Structure formats: structure tokens, C-alpha cells
């Protein structure tokens, strides 16, 4: 029986204090476990301010939890303080941030990040070895070093840049990626490229991914398990498909009901048939029937 990859035991965190002793509870009593040897996409869903990002920072060991313990391969993150330990931890757990344009310095060529990561985490000495590592990682995300060598962030599209960010995170050979809203800043046509990439990383490279988002549709598409958070607490957890198809908690139900369907609202049958045949239900007149059905309060 091997140790779990990541185990959260009753994690809590509150901010504030100060003169009036007003404290905000960002995260309260969150527990979950990711197993070793069973890579999965684990989605954390919630409204803004529900503590998703605070949780991500604690898993990345960037913020210490106020209560509870986070164990990575059986070791409490609070005991990782020496530089060598921290480096070993960072090698196994890597972040992907929301906005790739903010994550990269606009005045720095993006390939430099790849070389620096290769140098720090794989011990690659010299430009040739670092370029080989960078190229290998870029191939995993469907890019090549030839495409991005010497490019600045503004010369790449959001999707490309986010894939470079993921390639950078893959160079140390991590077991876990923590992706905080990785596709919310990316265009619709490129979003699925990144989402499919996560799926491939899980299936082919065996990387577990903590996918933090408020987009339920992509969460349904790629995740295996899901937790739904509201005001810092987990209100529902379980298999992604089951939770999203049949939510139980009132908040999950509200969330599910608020997702706008990309399919046009169903009209009556005749209208739908007409649309199927390529004939708009109403004659072509924006000021005509379709609008008369609305308010007559025209100024």
C-alpha cells in the first residue's frame, strides 16, 4: 500500500485580524485525497471568493494552512522548509496560472523560462542540454522549440502561451499540476486544445491535475472527480458526472441551473421544424413580429 499522492486533512485558513478582530474564513475544513498511481483530473468548482485559489496556494505550499495538514506523499508540507526539500517538492508539484500574459514577463523571451526551469530542476548544464529538455516538453504540448525560440509573449496567441506555460511546468517531470482557471482567458476556438491537452497529460504521462474553474461545462468534459465549494466549504463532492448531472446540495443545484446552455432555447415545434429546414420562423424584419412580442415601449 503506497502513500497517497496528496492528502488534505481538515484544511482551514482565515485572513484578517487587526484592530477589530474581524476575520474572514477563506477555507474551512476541506479534506480530500489523490491516490498515487491513479492519475486523475480533480476539479474544484465554486463562485468567486469561495476559497478556490487560497486552496490552490496552500497545495502549492505558497501559503501555510491555518488549520489541518497537507501531506504530499506522506510528508507534511509544513516540514518542507529547507531549500533542497522545497526544490524536490516543486519538482513534483507545478502550477499553471490563469492568465498566461500576466504569468510571463512581457520583456523577457518565453524560451528563457524553459531554459531556467530545465537548469534548476533537471540539472541540465549548457544551452544544448537545456534546449533539448525544452524541446521535449514543448513536443508534449504540441509545440516545438523552433516555433517559440526567441519569441516574446505578445508574439504568441493566448492558447500557445498557455501551452508554453504548461510545457514549462512539465519540464521537471511533475506528478501533480495545479491549474488555477487555466482556460478562462483563452479564446473559445483554442480552449478545447488546452483542455484536451490536460486529458492527454493524464492518460499518457500519468500526471494528476487539480483543475480549478468556474466553468462547469469544461469541468464535466475532463474531470474524473469534482468538489463544489461555497464560502470556503465543500458542499458537494464525488464523481464529476454524477455530481453535475444530478446535484444534491441546494448550492450545487443553483450552480447547475445557472449554467447557460449553448443551445438556443427551445421554441415551439413548428418554429423548430422551420429552423431545421433553413427557414427562419419569422420573416426577415428585425422590427417585425419577433420584436413586437416584446415591449411596445419604443421611445
Amino acid at each position, binding site marked *: 500500500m503506497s502513500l497517497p499522492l496528496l492528502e488534505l486533512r481538515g484544511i482551514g485558513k482565515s485572513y484578517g485580524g487587526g484592530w477589530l478582530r474581524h476575520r474572514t474564513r477563506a477555507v474551512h475544513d476541506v479534506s480530500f485525497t489523490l491516490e498515487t498511481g491513479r492519475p486523475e483530473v480533480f476539479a474544484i468548482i465554486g*463562485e468567486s471568493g469561495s476559497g478556490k485559489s487560497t486552496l490552490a496556494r496552500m497545495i502549492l505550499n505558497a501559503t501555510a494552512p491555518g488549520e489541518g495538514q497537507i501531506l504530499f506523499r506522506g510528508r507534511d508540507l509544513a516540514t518542507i522548509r529547507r531549500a533542497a526539500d522545497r526544490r524536490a517538492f516543486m519538482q513534483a508539484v507545478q502550477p499553471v496560472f490563469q492568465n498566461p500574459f500576466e504569468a510571463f514577463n512581457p520583456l523577457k523571451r518565453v524560451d528563457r523560462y524553459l531554459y531556467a526551469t530545465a537548469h534548476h530542476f533537471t540539472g541540465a548544464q549548457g544551452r544544448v542540454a537545456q534546449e533539448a529538455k525544452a524541446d521535449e516538453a514543448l513536443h508534449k504540448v504540441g509545440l516545438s522549440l523552433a516555433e517559440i525560440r526567441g519569441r516574446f509573449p505578445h508574439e504568441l496567441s493566448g492558447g500557445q502561451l498557455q501551452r508554453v506555460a504548461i510545457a514549462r511546468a512539465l519540464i521537471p517531470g511533475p506528478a501533480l499540476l495545479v491549474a488555477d482557471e487555466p482556460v478562462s482567458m483563452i479564446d*473559445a*476556438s483554442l480552449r478545447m486544445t488546452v483542455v484536451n491537452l490536460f486529458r492527454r497529460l493524464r492518460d499518457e504521462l500519468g500526471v494528476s491535475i487539480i483543475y480549478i474553474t468556474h466553468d462547469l461545462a469544461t469541468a464535466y468534459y475532463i474531470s474524473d472527480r469534482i468538489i463544489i465549494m461555497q464560502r470556503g466549504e465543500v458542499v458537494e463532492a464525488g464523481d464529476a458526472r454524477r455530481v453535475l448531472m444530478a446535484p444534491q446540495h441546494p448550492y450545487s443545484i443553483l450552480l447547475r441551473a*445557472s*449554467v447557460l*446552455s449553448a443551445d438556443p*432555447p427551445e421554441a415551439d415545434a413548428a418554429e423548430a421544424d422551420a429552423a431545421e429546414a433553413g427557414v427562419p420562423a419569422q420573416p426577415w424584419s*428585425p*422590427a417585425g413580429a419577433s420584436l413586437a412580442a416584446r415591449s411596445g415601449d419604443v421611445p
Partner: protein
Amino acid sequence: MTEETMMLAPPRPTPALPAPVLSVEKLRAYYQMRFFGVTREVRAVDGITLQIGRNEIYGIAGESSSGKSSLIKTIARAIRPPLNVVDGSVRFDFGEGPADIYKLDPHALAAIRWRHLSYIMQGSMNVLNPVRRIRHSFLDFAFRHMHLPMPVFLQRVEGHLARLNLEPRVLNAYPHELSGGMRQRVTIALATVCRPAFIIADEPTTALDVVVQKSVLTMIRGIQQEMGSSVLFVTHDMAVHANLTDRLGIMYAGRLVEEAPTRSLLRRPLHPYTRHLVASLPRIGDDAPKAGLNGTPPSLAKPPPGCRFHPRCPLAMDICRTEAPPMEELLPGHRVACHAVRQELAS
């Protein structure tokens, strides 16, 4: 009428709408920069023609850097060099006959702004002055357009806030004291308090989570229906378009590539870009694999010749590489710019 006869019918020109509020004709706006004698042009808006009727919500979708924001800035005449209008016209008709917004003198423009033409901006955080109370923002934006004495004005503002489910006391709050959803509702209230005939909304819900997004959209729709305004709604989120807009235009690399009533556009997208966009939308309960679009969005400084979509297009033919397809009405009310689709529908 059957599908067959529809397709055999020759494409007809767009019928003149009964007095559209906004008509944009062959609008071109380029970012023109000169460095040491070298001129560089970025063709952000390249030959766009569209009309928006009264009491209509018109949506514009497209990826970032497709020129959506440049287009609406140009329409609102909120542009500054290096973005310049090169060609074409933007005419508004607020009941006094069509007037080209670029031919108005500054006084006439100031009289139209906010009174008839208002703007819901994207980042509510950046619109509201962080060091002044909300009341001050209302005075700043709307007071001089309403021509009302101060107590009546404030009463009007409070009544309007109530319509958006905001209590009068938000007027005394600072922006940081309000939640994101409340701030966004305040910006909607700011943009609608003068009951304008035309509202431009630029990604008003992108920063909000799904629950708040839905309530904000319901409010925009409610206010629009109540006042009978026209709305130009820009977002890249197709689900929002599906639920809000009446007609939808798809932009790609500075050009409009398809335009149709939202429902028929989503049911039967014609342009290959739109087809991909609609097919790749993830849906809850749908386990089919979705593919991303290959290739990268074109640079607007050096757009590909011919149809700008051809390097990524699965239907690309020889003609697409040399000749830009014109925007034609291939089905009633459904305009498309694509050589392949035209051939497909003609045969």
C-alpha cells in the same frame, strides 16, 4: 417553402430595414503607426457592414484580437490615434434622421453621448472611481444629460437602482464595499439611467461567476425590454449569445464572416469557423470528444491573402487563397462570407 426552393433562389440583397438605429457601411478602421518613416498598419476593422434595428439585441462574437473591441470603439467614436477610421460610415438614427457620428461637431456628439448612446464597460472595478462614493459616479456620468434639478435627479437614480434590485444606500458606498455582481449592476444602472436608445455592452459578464452572470443578463434583458432600447452586445461566450441576443454576427480577423438570427445561426452554422465554434462548445451531459481549432489566429498586421480563415479552414480551395469572399445573404436573413458555402448551397 421547402429547403430546395430556398437554396435555388438567387441570393437577394439585404432588404432595407425599417429605420435601423445604427447602420455601419463598409467601415474600415486601422491602427496606423509610423516609426522612422516606416508605416505599419493593423487592420482591426476591415470592411464591416451591419445594421441594428430598434428594440433589438445584436451580438458580436469572436476570439480576442478579432477586432471586436476596435469595432465597438469605432462605432461609439471613442477612438484615438493610432486607431483611425480609413473608410466607411457609422450612422445613428435617434428619431431625428440618420446622422454620421464622424460628421458631428463636439457639442452635438456630447449631446448624444449617454443621452442616446451609452456604454456598459467590461471591468466594473475600473469604471467606478475607487476613491469617490457611487453617488459621485452618477453625478459625473449622468447629471448634466438629464437636465433635472438635483433632488429630482437623485430620486430618479434611486428609482432606477431599485429596478436593478439595488438599495438606495449603495449610492453612499465606495466601490470596494460592493461585491462584483453589485458593481456590475451599478455600471448597468449608470449606462441605462438616461434611458438611452442605444446601449453598447462590452463583455459585461466575463469577470462574473455563473450565478451572478445569469442574474446580470436577466437584468440587461429586462431593462432593454422595458425601455425598448437597442443593444450591441459583445462577448466571446456563445452560451451568453444563445440566451440573450436576437441576431448574432461572428467576427474573424477584423471581418464579419457570418450573421444571422441567433437561433438559426446556432442550429445551422454555415461558415466553417462558426461550425467549428458551435461544434466545439462543451456541454454538460455530452461526452463526445471536442477538438480545438488547429493553427493560430492570423496577425492583423500581415493578414493572409484572400479569405483570412483559409490557413485553418478544412474546406479551403484555390480561390480562397487569392480572393476574399464577399458577405452575401445565402439564406434569408443569413449572411455568410465563404466561397465553399456558396458553392455548396448553389449546387
